[in-house]
């Protein structure tokens, strides 16, 4: 309890906690879970966008999409590294992902059904992610905070790029505009749900706020996102699929219609449209790659043995 108080005091003083520092087990566990989920989300997130690499309608867009998907892999890599500073290995985390113990962001269990989705994901999904992540750049755990600074910088580039794709479609042929609107219709609510349950129903929030892992509540962040996004949609001439959405002068933000929490929990529980396919795709990659990873280890071992043999001569 004394230790807990001292720890809390450090956190309150905005001091960064570093890997070799003592920390409460709950703090460590919360971070491992959260950073792991975040890393998995980046990795699984490569799939829905990767689905359009081979069909991107121009070479410029194809290159940009490849670069984006690569960035996501990169984010995964440094987030796994951040989690590893807390004493868990990437292999362990991967196994938890593949056997369903670890979660990843539900948003990636929706399918990408048109090229417009590549724009919309950048605009809305990366946009929502940034809202969630910017406060994490000031997270009390040092390695996570530093990883997030880099992630956020790249994500906001992706967000602008996504918005620009949607803008090009919105100003394109009638078919392209319809494609953009259709995509917004499908991704709006899932994006809004990315901020999680309402504050009243959120489990992990209070302790995370106290430990400065989290700095804003779900509803606060959701409100910020909606307020930022509505004018963007208006600028594009697209309609947000929420008839109850309207400006509330009093609170200085938008009111929105009710969220379909049945849908939310269904997807969180792993019954999203592509849930099975996503995990199956990652599992296939992992299983098919086993002989490669084994060979790499075996070769490193042989090389080490040869070096020792030479040294011993």
């Amino acid at each position, binding site marked *: 309890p004394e230790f807990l108080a001292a720890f809390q005091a450090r956190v309150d003083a905005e001091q960064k906690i570093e890997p070799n520092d003592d920390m409460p087990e709950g703090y460590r566990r919360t971070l491992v879970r959260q950073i792991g989920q975040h890393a998995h989300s980046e*990795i699984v997130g*490569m*799939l829905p966008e*990767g689905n359009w*690499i*081979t*069909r*991107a*309608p*121009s*070479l*410029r*867009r*194809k*290159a940009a999409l*490849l*670069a984006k*998907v*690569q960035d996501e*892999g*990169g984010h*995964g*890599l440094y987030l*796994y590294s951040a989690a590893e500073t807390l004493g868990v290995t*990437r292999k362990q985390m991967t196994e938890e992902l593949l056997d369903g113990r670890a979660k990843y962001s539900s948003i990636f269990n929706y399918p990408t059904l048109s*090229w417009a989705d590549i724009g919309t994901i950048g605009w809305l999904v990366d946009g929502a992610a940034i809202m969630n992540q910017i406060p994490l750049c000031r997270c009390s755990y040092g390695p996570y905070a530093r990883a997030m600074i880099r992630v956020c910088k790249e994500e906001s580039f992706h967000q602008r790029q996504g918005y620009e*794709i949607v803008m*090009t479609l919105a100003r*394109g*042929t009638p*078919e*392209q505009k319809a494609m953009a609107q259709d995509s917004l219709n499908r991704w709006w609510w899932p994006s809004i749900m990315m901020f999680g349950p309402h504050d009243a129903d959120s489990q992990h929030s209070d302790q995370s706020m106290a430990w400065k892992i989290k700095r804003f509540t779900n509803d606060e962040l959701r409100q910020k996102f909606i307020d930022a996004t509505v004018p963007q949609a208006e600028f594009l001439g697209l309609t947000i699929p929420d008839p109850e959405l309207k400006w509330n002068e009093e609170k200085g933000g938008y009111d929105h219609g009710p969220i379909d929490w049945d849908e939310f929990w269904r997807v969180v529980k792993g019954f999203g449209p592509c849930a099975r396919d996503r995990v199956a*795709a990652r599992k*296939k*990659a*992992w299983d*098919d*790659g*086993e*002989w*490669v*990873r*084994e*060979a*790499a280890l*075996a*070769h*490193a071992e*042989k090389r080490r043995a040869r070096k020792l043999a030479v040294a011993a001569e």
Partner: protein
Amino acid sequence: MPLFDALLELADDHLVLGHRVSEWCGHAPMLEEDLAMPNMALDMIGTARSLYDYAGQVEGKGRGEDDLAYLRSEREYRNLLLVERPNGDFAHTMLRQLYFAAFMHPYWTAALTSEDETIQGIAGKAVKEMAYHIRHAGEWVIRLGDGTEESARRMADAAEALSIYVGELFEEGAAEDVPALPRRADLRATWEATIAEVFDEAGMTFEPSKYPQSGGRDGRHGEQLGHMLAEMQSVHRAHPGATW
């Protein structure tokens, strides 16, 4: 137009191989390779874009990179058979990459002193990228060739399967009469030396094929290219004239 045709050949090589490599994205054996694959694909697609762009200028009919990439049929593509081969397993993919890069590196090196400044410029960027591809793919060929029994068997299968496509690398194609581009036949010795060095470390021997295949430069491809292009061009072709 020999220069136009020769640029298309080169561009198609890079786009098609870039496409193949990009198919690995999100499906690689380890996260590091999930990063390396799009990285290599980006290098090749970037080079393809510069080459198509220049080809369009040379042609002078207003065709841009996307017209050349998205609106030509399988029979109009002039890429090497090697680069269109399906990914197969990781051993096939890495050996294919090594074969290609071990050719393109000396090719771009020679092109650095081309009389054509645009080609010089493309070569300057590509030569560094191809050096990285040789290193990356070469290291994997060594690891797999000298790894486990299974990986050695798979690498040997890959070498057997791909050997018939090597000869075509050294055919001059449309560049026969283009002084601004290197002679391909002259690069065989360098290619063989690079491969010999890697294979030696991998415990393998390069066996040239008695019956090399060619035809890619005349648009006589394997059956897989058509499927690749059907997918690649689908959105573009479904919306004629649209801007993306």
